[in-house]
């Protein structure tokens, strides 16, 4: 490994973890290069161990470059940074003197056809990105999964070819975040791992695996431990780490509820030995957060991680429900075809992978989930998934519209309530 170039992003995450610091990261993107640069500088200056993010705008994500160009020309507001529209020298100028060994930057985009974005990123010296053939296809549109798989294969080729220029690319799978909420953790862990195995098969040697905080802290802990355990077996010759996402569903409306949820996410990361955390802000339920609100969230998360102490006692997560489900799903899919991309396509076609409530035409749509009284996400209908609804907890009734609204707001409601009763225990936080 020593003669190979290392990925600076993964290397910084590893060094930070070794000295006991959780790396925290915002999601942030601005259309204007100066605003983007200032945002990165503010994140770098936060009182926390941070990495930078360049989130792209939705025109660029959808490949509507003419619209992005028009918006830039007219000085209109974009909801992210149009990396394919600004010239390469502008892109490099945004990073010049900001990005360094101790402040690496990741490009976040959400595209199922990311070849052009990857090429523009590499041209700007940005060798670290995220996504995946399943996680950036099924939740966001109707592009056939088969085509998304081919697009991501080509994107991996582009990244691997960049090694000729002493670059070691890094990709994070977004598979642990499917639809943000109501996807049982066993399936999140499985998709995260399967996309990781896909990246490895297509030549990536530096990968991160995601998992988004869900509805029950103990189930989340089991999930991250399962992810770690299975990654150890499936990615033996890869430099990998785990990234936790602060809850991605309907967000608490109160400031104290939102911050409490963020602190729980930081604690989850520390207790499971996860290396990186992507934060949300207290403004999340109401609007797109400002740079200052992002910096505040990063600092609060860092403080919560420090207060949670070092990583807990070694726990393999053996025997958990999440591990059993994830193992069954991963084994079934990898058994379908030696080509992981083809195996993913076949698995969705046969309903062996089936994301609850996902409306994509290539998703079987027979699996359904619900939140149990203890807050755990469970299957009510498993369709053709190779998992069983757990006997004592299986709840076969269908969800009504009112049930769905209750489930979607479960986390927001319980954190708003719980923060209201524990407010006096949180120093420095005013409602």
């Amino acid at each position: 490994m020593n003669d190979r170039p290392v990925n600076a992003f993964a290397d910084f995450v590893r060094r930070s973890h070794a000295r006991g610091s959780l790396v925290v990261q915002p999601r942030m993107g601005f259309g204007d290069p100066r605003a983007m640069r200032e945002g990165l500088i503010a994140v770098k200056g936060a009182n926390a161990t941070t990495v930078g993010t360049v989130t792209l705008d939705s025109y660029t994500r959808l490949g509507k470059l003419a619209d992005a160009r028009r918006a830039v020309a007219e000085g209109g507001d974009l909801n992210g940074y149009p990396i394919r529209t600004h010239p390469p020298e502008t892109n490099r100028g945004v990073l010049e003197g900001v990005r360094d060994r101790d402040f690496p930057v990741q490009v976040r985009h959400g595209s199922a056809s990311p070849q052009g974005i990857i090429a523009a990123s590499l041209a700007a010296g940005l060798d670290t990105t995220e996504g995946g053939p399943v996680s950036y296809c099924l939740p966001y549109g109707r592009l056939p999964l088969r085509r998304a798989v081919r697009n991501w294969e080509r994107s991996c080729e582009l990244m691997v070819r960049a090694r000729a220029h002493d670059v070691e690319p890094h990709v994070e799978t977004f598979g642990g975040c499917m639809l943000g909420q109501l996807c049982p953790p066993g399936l999140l862990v499985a998709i995260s791992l399967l996309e990781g195995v896909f990246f490895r098969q297509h030549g990536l040697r530096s990968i991160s695996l995601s998992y988004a905080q869900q509805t029950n802290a103990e189930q989340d802990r089991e999930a991250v431990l399962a992810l770690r355990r299975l990654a150890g077996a499936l990615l033996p010759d890869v430099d990998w780490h785990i990234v936790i996402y602060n809850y991605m569903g309907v967000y608490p409306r109160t400031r104290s509820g939102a911050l409490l949820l963020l602190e729980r996410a930081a604690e989850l990361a520390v207790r499971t030995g996860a290396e990186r955390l992507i934060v949300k802000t207290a403004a999340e339920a109401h609007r797109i957060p400002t740079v200052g609100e992002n910096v505040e969230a990063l600092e609060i998360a860092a403080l919560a991680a420090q207060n949670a102490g070092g990583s807990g006692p070694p726990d393999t997560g053996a025997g958990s429900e999440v591990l059993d489900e994830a193992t069954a799903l991963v084994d079934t899919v990898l058994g379908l075809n030696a080509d992981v991309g083809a195996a993913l396509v076949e698995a969705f076609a046969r309903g062996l992978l089936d994301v609850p409530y996902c409306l994509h035409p290539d998703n079987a749509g027979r699996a359904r989930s619900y939140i149990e009284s203890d807050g755990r996400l469970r299957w009510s209908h498993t369709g053709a998934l190779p998992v069983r609804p757990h006997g004592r907890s299986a709840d076969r009734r269908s969800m009504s519209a009112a049930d769905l609204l209750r489930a979607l707001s479960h986390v927001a409601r319980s954190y708003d309530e719980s923060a209201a009763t524990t407010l006096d225990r949180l120093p420095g936080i005013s409602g």
Partner: protein
Amino acid sequence: MGTDATLDVIVSGTESDSHTWNLVFLQLQLEDWGHRVRNLGPCLPGGELAEECRRGAPDLIVLSSVNGHGESDGLAAVAALRAVPELAGTPVVIGGKLGTGRQLSAGAGGGTGGEMTHRLLSAGFSAVFHEASGVAEFERYVAALGAEKARRAGRVLEELRAAPTP
């Protein structure tokens, strides 16, 4: 009312909007009210939407947008739908968070929510439901359509019964 009032409904997102949960909610809500739903999901361009609706021949088309670009996306979608002769008389409605705060508040730039509603209705929508109007207004609209369908079916049966037998 019985099954005669059951509507075949197509639910769809709009082209620039990748949100899913609003569409899942609408499907469950319409199913709770006894209707049959085909959900086309998020990010559907107008042309594809029109083709799916032409083939599906629904009683009602429901578009939902929550990303603040509902007006521009909606205008494009309804133009594509109304260009299909088979859909000329099909009720097409749109709802959600249809504009940014600035566009919806009085006086600034895009005018009031009322003006936006007017533009959307002029372009061919049968009804417009802003976020603030809540579900009850939509429920009344859908129930009235169901009742109308049941009445029409009843009339057809009467006419068939009234037709002279050979």
